[in-house]
């Protein structure tokens, strides 16, 4: 049963990832990315990361992708039909990487250790969200505050960049 779910999610994720790159129209690319986000969230649920699945749907599908679609429709671009001339470089970089990875994994599957028994974390008894919250606000408290600073800087930067005339009467 777990294999069935993993096969379904992995198949759809791989297919929609290829579609994101292959489709010409950016709106279709963004919509297939939406399908991919939902299936990644499903994969997180099978990995017992329910909180991250919810956050994935809310933040990625709800906020980030809406922002993308907003900009695509705001700019109203014509369809760019051709791919970039760098596809040879892309093939040259990626096909050896993929082959190397397959070879490494084919040799390493038999030797991979089993899962560690579940006593190393502690405090996982109250569900995934509680455990993540306790970890986030105890061990990772300082990175959490730094993340808030990153969000503030990004917000200010986005406003400054997209503002039409910063500090005066710039033309256009």
């Amino acid at each position, binding site marked *: 049963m*777990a294999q069935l779910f*993993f096969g379904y999610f992995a198949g759809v*994720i*791989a297919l929609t*990832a290829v579609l*994101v*790159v292959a489709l010409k129209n*950016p709106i279709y*690319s963004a919509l297939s990315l939406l399908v*991919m986000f939902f299936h990644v969230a499903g994969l*997180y649920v*099978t990995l*017992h*990361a329910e*909180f*991250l699945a919810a*956050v*994935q749907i809310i*933040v*990625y599908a709800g906020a*980030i992708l809406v*922002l*993308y679609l907003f*900009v*695509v429709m*705001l*700019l109203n*671009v014509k369809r760019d039909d*051709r*791919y*970039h001339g*760098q*596809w040879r470089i*892309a093939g040259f*970089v*990626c096909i050896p990487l*993929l082959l190397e*990875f397959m070879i490494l*994994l084919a040799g*390493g*599957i038999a030797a991979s250790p089993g*899962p*560690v*028994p*579940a006593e*190393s*974390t502690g405090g*996982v008894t109250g569900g995934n969200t509680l455990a*993540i919250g306790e970890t986030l606000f105890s*061990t*990772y408290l300082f990175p959490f505050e730094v*993340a808030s600073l*990153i*969000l503030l800087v*990004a*917000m200010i*930067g*986005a406003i400054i*960049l*997209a503002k039409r005339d910063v500090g005066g009467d710039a033309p256009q």
Partner: protein
Amino acid sequence: MIPVSYYLILSAIVFLTGVVGVLIRRNIIAILLSVELMLNATNINFVAFSEHLQDLGGQVFVFFALTVAAAEVAVGLAIIIALHRSKSTINVEEFNLLKW
């Protein structure tokens, strides 16, 4: 029980798809979407290893990666809007001001 190497293969496929997308697409929005693909591939890896090692640090790190992705999208789309305002195109081959 799915072996963790299957998740690695899936993540590698998605990541390489993102790399190919960054290299071959001309539309700058599609390039940013490919960057999102790569970020999601790393997130899948983090969650798979978090389950494999029974360590919540991986999931917390995905949380931070999500934050950085949101910031990157906001700034990236603002840059795209500014570029489109100055050049009226989002084809990356038109942006060659710093090229020599």
